[in-house]
């Protein structure tokens, strides 16, 4: 029988009812308790009026209650829509309206982020104190019996993950139950996930990578240990005290872990339990690899790559990290990665082409957006009847088949694990009364991926004080979107006859002013990203 998140949990709860499934600072649950809590939450949703197929948002702190809410949504056969923290108001409103979100589950910490949207969706709290104004899931759960579920099939919608695009509003990537289960099984295969694993969860549950830690846990009967990363020394204590065996991270998290401005407690602990660290979402620098290897000498390192449209595409066999430190590896099980030129033909080794993903993890497309879906989710004459994901990312393959990331095809800025649209940054910058025009772009910063930079002109030709401009931007932009670099131009160059801004020339001019050579990934001192 093909896998499903529901079956993973029920089978594991049957086999290992008393085993601890999830722990956090405040509580733990066994698999049997988690199953019952998830079913009871699904019952709460039904009681509140959630119908199969309804979109239900989750905007919560990372807690056991958040996991119950997530599972409750899936088990009620509704569609999970995570709302990332610190999104711009207008983007949250867009997500709610675009998905026609029927309910939004939040908690007291996040309530002020979403309270204003009570006019367009129904708010529910999933954690904490009973609130006079809104239904509260932990409270309701006490009065409802877990009940067996109506059938859902693999093809049913499970989640919509919104991701920023370079123009317009974030697009929702539609994911099926089949996608979630297949992704979990494939990753468990190459990471060798097993029942004795204790997964250190520093990732949030607002995206596919973080959510997959839950699915892995349910599938294999591992234990998931939640941790909110703030200061690295707390993380090192956690890894040792909880005997963590598996640590999924991203490059920006590794940078935070080994922040040299802080005195680190790494020598005080025995990390021999840690059997792997895996990373995706950006390049692993030599410094990152050195820090990981010296701090966790017994751990394998898995470098991985993927896009949400197809969950994950590649991983590097950990025995190859020394010989191929910059490679993203080869295709994950049950998937194929093609490197295609503009004509759709396979590129020869060392020729730059587009990464095209074929196989199990291809998602259903963009929610209610046939135009953009048709651009990315396309057919290819060699594979009639199939839908492949054309990533737009540029890669090369070597003679042995190892892949290397070259560049993104789009204008997006990837900073601190977030995708930032230059147009959104520009729109905020030009709101300032003294600003004329703005052009935002990425400056390489391997510590966090990229820094946001913005070139601007002013109406009176005089540069603005950086602190004043940053204060202005901070009032409306989440921190990761506030430019680290603000570069003043007296006038912007324009292209040809049509009077459009010459973005290429502006970027080159800005790099010159910053004293950075365009093609070199210069490591800039860490503090500037904030």
């Amino acid at each position, binding site marked *: 029988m093909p896998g499903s998140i529901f079956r993973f949990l029920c089978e594991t709860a049957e086999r290992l009812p008393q085993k601890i499934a999830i722990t956090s600072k405040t509580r733990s649950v066994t698999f049997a308790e988690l199953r019952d809590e998830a079913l009871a939450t699904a019952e709460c949703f039904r009681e509140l009026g959630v119908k199969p197929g309804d979109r239900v948002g989750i905007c919560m*702190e990372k807690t056991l209650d958040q996991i119950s809410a997530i599972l409750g949504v899936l088990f009620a056969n509704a569609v999970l829509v995570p709302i990332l*923290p*610190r999104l711009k108001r207008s983007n949250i409103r867009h997500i709610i309206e675009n998905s026609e979100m029927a309910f939004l589950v939040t908690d007291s*910490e996040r309530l002020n982020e979403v309270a204003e949207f009570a006019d367009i969706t129904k708010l529910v709290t999933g954690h904490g104190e009973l609130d006079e104004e809104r239904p509260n899931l932990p409270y309701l759960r006490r009065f409802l019996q877990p009940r067996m579920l109506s059938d859902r099939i693999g093809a049913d919608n499970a989640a919509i993950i919104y991701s920023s695009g370079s123009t317009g509003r974030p697009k929702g990537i539609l994911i099926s139950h089949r996608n979630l289960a297949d992704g979990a099984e494939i990753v468990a295969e190459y990471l060798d996930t097993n029942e004795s694993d204790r997964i250190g969860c520093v990732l949030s549950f607002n995206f596919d990578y973080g959510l997959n830690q839950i699915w892995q846990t349910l599938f294999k009967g591992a234990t998931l240990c939640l941790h*909110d*990363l*703030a*200061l*690295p*020394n*707390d993380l090192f*204590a956690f890894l040792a005290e909880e005997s963590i065996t598996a640590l999924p991270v991203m490059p920006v998290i590794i940078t*935070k872990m080994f*922040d040299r*401005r*802080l*005195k*680190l*407690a790494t020598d*005080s602990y025995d990390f021999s339990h840690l059997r792997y660290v895996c990373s995706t979402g950006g390049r692993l620098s030599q410094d990152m690899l050195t820090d990981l290897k010296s701090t966790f000498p017994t751990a394998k390192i898995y470098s991985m790559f993927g896009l949400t449209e197809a969950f994950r595409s590649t991983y590097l066999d950990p025995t190859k990290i020394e010989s191929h430190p910059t490679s993203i590896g080869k295709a994950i099980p049950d998937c194929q990665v093609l490197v295609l030129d503009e004509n759709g033909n396979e590129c020869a080794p060392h020729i730059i082409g587009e990464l095209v993903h074929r196989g199990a993890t291809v998602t259903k497309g963009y929610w209610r957006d046939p135009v953009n879906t048709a651009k990315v989710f396309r057919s290819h004459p060699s594979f009639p009847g199939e839908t492949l994901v054309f990533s737009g990312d540029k890669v090369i393959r070597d003679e042995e088949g190892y892949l290397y990331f070259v560049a993104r095809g789009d204008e997006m800025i990837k900073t*601190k694990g977030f995708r930032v649209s230059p147009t959104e940054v520009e729109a905020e910058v030009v709101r300032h009364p003294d600003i004329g025009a703005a052009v935002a772009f990425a400056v390489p910063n391997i510590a966090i991926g990229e820094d946001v930079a913005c070139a601007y002109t002013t109406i009176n030709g005089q540069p603005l004080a950086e*602190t004043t401009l*940053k*204060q202005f931007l*901070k*009032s409306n932009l989440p*921190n990761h979107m506030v430019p680290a670099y603000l570069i003043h131009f007296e006038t912007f160059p324009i292209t040809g006859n049509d009077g459009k801004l010459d973005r290429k020339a502006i970027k080159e001019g800005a790099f010159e002013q910053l004293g950075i050579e365009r093609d070199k990934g210069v490591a800039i001192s860490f*503090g500037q*990203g*904030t």
Partner: protein
Amino acid sequence: MRTELGILQDYIRLETGYEGEVTSDADLLRTHILDSFSIVQLAMFVQERFGIELEAEDLVRDNLSTLSRVIALIQKKKNTGLANSEPRM
């Protein structure tokens, strides 16, 4: 004479753009006044501004989660470090 609390409140306002009142007991991380980047900046600022050196065991969430805890840490380090540190303003 500005109190330590006043200095820290001003720093937060300037660095984060946060406009509301930062009470001495507000949990800076849970309320999202600070994130995992800006909390490190705060630790750096505290060392510089108050002339103290924070050791590995000091640099934990429990010591920096609220302004009253930060102030307690500053005072503890000042008292133990009096013999060694040079005051830096």
